């Protein structure tokens, strides 16, 4: 079973919840797909056992074969290639290139434009006790996280308990993570901003047709704003983490109350499992 934890707004407690949840349900695989700013490893502190480069193909032009016709640059949807006919020069802007391959497809001169691998990030594997760790780390300035997220996903074996930490937001990287999971937990906080962004993510998850529930983080008795939203939208708040200074203090030191939430989160997993049977 694959369960993804998403949020919409950043900083609602995705990683706090996901790492606690993975620990409580060990043996499990924890996957950090927030490749632009992964942080699950700060709390799980896995021993990294394998690290490999993630590369994608980018164009390289051979000056002796290129006729500077400019077709590759004209067809590049991201303007990552510039061909300057009068001075017979070519420029490549790697931070704009999405490795789509159109340039090499349209180049009419054999051997003038070749595709070469360029490292865009890494994939890491490790283990923290009975929690296996898998995650990606994208190089700074890369235009899109999606290809690395896809590559991380390819490392997941289907027969495991898979707990996936999704990136924040509601754009392509999140869609790439949520599209083939079995269940989605949306971690939210009872603040106007939190609820607003949650509502956007709810729309997305509904579009994807995934079963989902809300996890309320920073829950405080008396603040019913998230509860009211959930009621109105007919969504279950399936779990709550209280708003406590101690939890925040621990978080700031990379320490989470694993034991305290173990039983509750084990039951939560079983509840979802029963629901999906």
């Amino acid at each position: 079973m694959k369960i993804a934890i998403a949020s919409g707004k950043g900083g609602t407690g995705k990683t706090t919840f996901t790492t606690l949840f993975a620990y409580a349900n060990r043996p499990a695989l924890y996957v950090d797909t927030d490749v632009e700013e992964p942080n699950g490893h700060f709390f799980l502190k896995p021993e990294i056992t394998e690290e490999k480069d993630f590369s994608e193909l980018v164009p390289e032009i051979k000056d002796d074969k290129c006729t500077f016709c400019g077709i590759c640059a004209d067809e590049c949807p991201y303007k990552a290639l510039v061909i300057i006919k009068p001075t017979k020069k070519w420029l490549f802007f790697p931070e704009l290139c999405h490795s789509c391959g159109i340039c090499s497809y349209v180049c009419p001169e054999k051997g003038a434009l070749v595709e070469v691998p360029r490292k865009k990030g890494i994939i890491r594997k490790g283990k923290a006790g009975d929690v296996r760790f898998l995650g990606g780390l994208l190089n700074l300035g890369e235009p899109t996280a999606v290809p690395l997220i896809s590559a991380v996903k390819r490392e997941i074996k289907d027969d495991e308990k898979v707990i996936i930490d999704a990136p924040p937001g509601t754009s392509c990287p999140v869609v790439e993570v949520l599209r083939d999971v079995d269940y989605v937990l949306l971690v939210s906080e009872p603040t106007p901003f939190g609820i607003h962004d949650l509502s956007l993510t709810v729309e997305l998850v509904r579009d994807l047709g995934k079963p989902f529930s809300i996890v309320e983080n920073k829950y405080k008795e008396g603040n019913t704003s998230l509860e009211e939203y959930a009621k109105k939208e007919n969504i279950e708040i399936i779990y709550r983490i209280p708003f406590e200074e101690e939890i925040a203090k621990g978080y700031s030191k990379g320490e989470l109350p694993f034991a305290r939430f173990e039983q509750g989160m084990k039951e939560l997993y079983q509840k979802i499992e029963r629901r999906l049977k």
Partner: protein
Amino acid sequence: MKIFITSTGNSLKSKVDPKFGRCDYFIIYDTETKEFEAKENPYKAGQSSVGISLAQTVIKTGSTVAISTNFGPNAHRVLKEGDIKMYKADEDMTIEEAIKNYLNGKLKEVMSATSHEQADKIFPHHNE
């Protein structure tokens, strides 16, 4: 020789547009025929790479000089490699004045791009 100038409007009385890639219009002035052509910048509202696109336009139009107030790093790189000389006109100058000043050797050549940090200060809302 053709001069490419970023402009806020479509006449020689218009002011110079201080942003190269996201200028409203551009004017190409031919120093031999003394005629000009004004065009709307098709990349003005583009999501990204607008400087690169407009710099390629400069080269494609056969202009050899580009006048603006601020050239971004990507645009600057393309224009430089295309052997286009870049000159700085203050933004309160009209196109006419900018051309005159250029022809009289009064404009300063732009040797380096306006960085993102500088652009944030000059155009506080340019990324919105």
